[in-house]
């Protein structure tokens, strides 16, 4: 049996197949030791022998955000010890000279230079001699590191110096992260940052996964533990422990894969995911029609740290249901980035006193006080109206205040989606918005309208979509190397073969057989940004095409260079038979549980409230309407036509 387990802040979600049927289990998380909840869940599921556990973990993200990782020593080429701190020499806050950013993960006394040098063409200008090695070892050892990051200059052109030093440092017996193994690509600061983050997470992630693995192993014979990567692929727990930088967006990546798989099954290949939670919102664009897969980026920045290994292109903004509304000095209404969080929470939860997006939604009648969390929690409407009346400032009434909050937060979300779509050359009209997270479906129709996205899909299990994505993900091993060669350079073939050989050996050792996909990062000679295109005949035409699409022009006369070669080895998981639900005819009225006064199109009207559990495939209805379920409420705007498809997804055609 295969079980996908996604650890969240509040719930640990599990999705698994039992006798060909998809089942969902939700239990409370155990933040102090996430493994406890996982073990409890697996015991409840009782999978029998040979269980495969696939895990979406927040241990990496949290360690980075809380800055509770290891004491890392960084070894660089001498003269470049400070690059990790200097970064790109720019300041984050252009007009705030009192702001102080977080210090780098490696303080000055833990940065060590080695006398050595490799050049751009791979020539070794200075080898590491044994005296230097000895002294380096002594200095590093004396600093008592818990992990070591090694990042010299140009190790991707020739790793011999880095190998030699790594060999010596290995004797210190702490986790070692080596740049030509983790990210053999040019741009030293971004590579060093990735390697340092990896080292920073390695001890904690290593012991967490080891302990979890042993605990699972002792209770369930022949169990295997795998981990979701930020790239949307599965790896072994062993590799995740060695290269935790690959797992920072483990959970959110599950959400994107889940959305992608559900949408594809429903017939939509180009999607924008919209995952709005309490304090933040994640958006991502997946265009599998154009690039045949999920699409990843190598330019992510997490908590201020560049991470150069492939990640799904997830863009996060600090606005969510709990974001607070306030008026600035010039009397403009602002929403966020401060959030009411879980404590005190929105006004309607009973303890908060300041208006949030969720309060505005409730005040407009777009949430139902009785059906929140499946009725497990009653929202206090009266209290909300009372506090909001007091805070509305110059606005005439609570309705105007609430509408204002919703418009402002939706503008922020719209901007986030514009960044990942329009700014990157995609037309939102060609996409479907897949919405999940507690607050997503409340605002999805409005977002779609604002961006002229023709359709919204609210998946069948919006609260367990991440776990579903993890269950459905393929096993993936990404590798790459900077080569800087002409596209017809014969050495490219060798570079590809090297990568393929190493990756497949590794995969085979873990019991998988992967299929290789070759691609290259290409640019016009002299450009500073690359486009990733599949390798093979017609490469140049594909590149010019991609360039025109993304940047509005191309120039076939200009020389082109291959910057990086990439190999992605994929061991497919195979399809999971999602069950079609029995159809129930067009009439959806049986699912109506009540009417509610809600604000739509400039006035308060009576709208039907549908219970998602009672909707059947084939049911159709037209907005205005609310659809309530355990973990979310969907708002169907006036004129939008909703239907339930064979898998229980809610599909809304936005007018």
């Amino acid at each position, binding site marked *: 049996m295969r079980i996908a387990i996604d650890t969240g802040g509040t719930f640990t979600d599990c999705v698994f197949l039992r006798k060909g049927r998809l089942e969902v289990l939700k239990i409370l998380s155990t933040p102090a030791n996430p493994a406890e909840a996982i073990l409890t869940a697996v015991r409840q599921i009782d999978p029998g022998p040979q269980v495969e556990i696939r895990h979406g973990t927040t241990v990496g993200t949290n360690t980075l955000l809380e800055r509770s990782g290891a004491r890392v020593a960084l070894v660089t080429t001498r003269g470049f010890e400070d690059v990790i701190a*200097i970064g790109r020499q*720019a300041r984050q806050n252009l007009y705030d000279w009192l702001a102080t950013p977080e210090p780098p993960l490696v303080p000055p006394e833990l940065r060590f230079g080695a006398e050595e040098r490799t050049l751009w063409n791979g020539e070794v200008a200075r080898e590491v001699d044994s005296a230097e090695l000895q002294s380096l070892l002594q200095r590093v050892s004396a600093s008592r590191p818990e992990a070591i990051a090694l990042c010299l200059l140009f190790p991707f052109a020739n790793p011999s110096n880095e190998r030699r030093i790594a060999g010596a440092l290995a004797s210190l017996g702490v986790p070692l992260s080596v740049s030509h193994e983790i990210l053999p690509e040019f741009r030293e600061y971004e590579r060093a940052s990735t390697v340092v983050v990896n080292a920073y997470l390695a001890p904690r992630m290593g012991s967490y996964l080891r302990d979890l693995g042993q605990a699972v192993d002792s209770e369930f014979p022949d169990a295997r533990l795998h981990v979701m990567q930020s790239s949307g692929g599965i790896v072994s727990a062993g590799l995740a422990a060695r290269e935790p930088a690959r797992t920072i967006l483990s959970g959110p990546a599950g959400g994107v894969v889940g959305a992608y798989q559900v949408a594809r099954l429903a017939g939509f290949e180009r999607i924008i995911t919209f995952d709005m939670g309490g304090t933040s919102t994640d958006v991502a664009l997946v265009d599998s029609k154009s690039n045949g897969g999920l699409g990843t980026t190598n330019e992510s920045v997490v908590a201020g740290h560049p991470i150069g290994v492939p990640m799904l292109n997830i863009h996060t903004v600090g606005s969510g249901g709990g974001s607070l509304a306030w008026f600035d000095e010039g009397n403009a209404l602002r929403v966020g980035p401060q959030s009411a969080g879980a404590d005190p929470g929105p006004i309607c939860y009973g303890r908060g006193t300041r208006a949030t997006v969720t309060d505005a939604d409730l005040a407009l009648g777009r949430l139902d006080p009785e059906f929140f969390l499946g009725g497990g929690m009653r929202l206090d409407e009266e209290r909300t109206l009372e506090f909001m009346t007091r805070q509305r400032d110059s606005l005439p009434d609570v309705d105007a205040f609430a509408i204002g909050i919703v418009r402002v937060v939706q*503008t922020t979300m719209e901007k986030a989606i514009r960044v990942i779509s329009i700014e990157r050359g995609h037309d939102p009209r060609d996409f479907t918005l897949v919405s999940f997270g507690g607050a997503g479906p409340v605002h999805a129709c409005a977002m779609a309208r604002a961006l002229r996205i023709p359709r919204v899909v609210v998946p069948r299990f919006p609260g367990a979509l991440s776990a579903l994505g993890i269950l459905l993900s393929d096993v993936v091993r990404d590798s790459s190397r900077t080569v800087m060669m002409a596209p017809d350079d014969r050495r490219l073939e060798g570079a590809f073969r090297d990568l393929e050989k190493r990756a497949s050996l590794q995969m085979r050792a873990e019991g998988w057989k992967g299929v290789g996909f070759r691609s290259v990062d290409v640019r016009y000679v002299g450009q500073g940004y690359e486009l990733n295109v599949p390798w093979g005949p017609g490469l140049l035409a594909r590149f010019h095409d991609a360039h025109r699409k993304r940047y509005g022009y191309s120039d076939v006369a200009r020389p082109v260079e291959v910057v990086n070669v990439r190999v992605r080895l994929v061991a497919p998981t195979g399809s999971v038979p999602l069950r079609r639900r029995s159809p129930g005819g067009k009439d959806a009225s049986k699912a109506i549980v009540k009417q509610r006064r809600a604000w739509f199109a400039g006035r308060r009207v009576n709208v039907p409230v549908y219970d998602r559990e009672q909707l059947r495939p084939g049911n159709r209805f037209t907005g205005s309407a609310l659809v309530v379920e355990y973990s979310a409420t969907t708002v169907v705007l006036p004129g939008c036509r909703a239907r339930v498809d064979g898998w229980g997804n809610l599909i809304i055609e936005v007018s």
Partner: protein
Amino acid sequence: MADKKKRDPVELSVFQSLFHSIAEEMGAALRRTAFSPNIKERRDYSCAVFDGAGEVVAMGDHMPVHLGSMPMSVRIAIDSLDLAPRDIAILNDPYAGGTHLPDVTMVQAVFLRRMRKPMFYVATRAHHADIGGMFPGSMGPCTEIYQEGVRIPPVKFVRAGKIDASLLRLILANVRTPMEREGDLTAQLGACRIGALRLEEMVEKYGVSRVRNNMATLLDYSEQFLRAELGRLPAGSFCAEDFLDDDGAGSGPIRIAVTLRLDPRKRRAEVDFTGTDPQVDGSINAVYAITYSAVYYAFRCLLAADTPATAGLMRPICLVVPKGTVVNAHPPAAVAGGNVETSQRIVDTLLRALAQAAPDRIPAASSGTMNNLTIGGIDPRNGNSFAYYETIAGGMGARPNADGLSGVHTHMTNSLNTPIEALEYSYPFRVHSYSYRKGSGGKGKFRGGDGLVREIELLADSQVTLLADRRRLQPYGLSGGEPGASGRGYLFRVDGRAEELPGKCTFSAGAGDRVRIETPGGGGWGTESDRKSD
């Protein structure tokens, strides 16, 4: 504040975000499509959206030095050209809407259907790595603007959507790296078009009067912020001076003087540069647009970080800038360094005056120079000519609440460095060091940030130009803090000779020679004896 109650707080917030989004999208397009490292890696560019009167309503978070000066480019394009639909103006003349020659600005008027006058303008400005003239990189020690590069007055570059091919040929014939220039200019055009398109879409969605009303409201709104701030500052006259080392053409120290007159009752301020030295032979003369930008920047920093950067902000400020001085130069003064060096000193001087009015909010002097380094020659690996330009950050002045940051760009610039590995792929250089210059920050209760050390070995015969300041005079401390260390430069010849480089110089160097730049530290804040032990 009676008028503020009339504004719709929701519209204000929403439209501020929408306008800003357009400027940001233009910037993203420019960055992604440009060819030169200077634009795409270092991000030395700005994009902005203007109303029909040419007042800036939104600007991307790009380069502060462009803040006040972009509107002047738009102004001159409006005044001197009859822009028709799909026309795009180009200019770089510092004496006609520009700042210094490498900064090339494009302006497009946005017309709506059935309207004869433009409703909006969009503009992009980018620093080009070479624009011709005596020295590769066009930042050398010239004494007349004619030596600094090709001077483009406001002219139409695109007519009805079609590039003027002869004009383009003329420009490209005058620069050292024509292919790269063409790529960058094309990228700027694309960014303008995207801005115009988005404004058209916005009007289609919201209607023209709503968009225009919100632009006007946004200008008032920014004004409000600064007026509120000016109302809180103490009344009085605050004088300060600071100096540039020299002009690089034989002058002594050059004085910049400012008198800041604050009137909290009327919520107004006057910034008077009377007493500043006359313009000089060397290239550090600043045109009025730069002084305006520096003043804009200093006041902008007194406000909350997300205050919109619109033209309204400057309404309560009255500027007195005597003509013929280094802060308001006349032709044919050379001006390449005014934008990068003098702009920083104007900020230093103004902050020194502001510190008397608001001592607990103003940092000590930062490095005060952009350490402009330009290297040109022929790359032996491929026989092509190259022109490399970069700025090197320094120490930030200590703040009243914390030490200054080390090795970071401050005030009027925020351009990124070029990665060492990208540098060595693209140019015949070997970098030997890129690190903090330890101990260069001034001591104090809070210490100034340290400067940087960058040492580059040349692998080909090259012409090297340095344009830097704070080599003799140090960045000042405040409230008893010590000044930061001044900067230094060295040339280590391959035969073992070492020369100390003056702040502003140009010289030939051969393969194997090394250039080492040590940038200034920031000044300290408060007395050292009050420092909590670290």
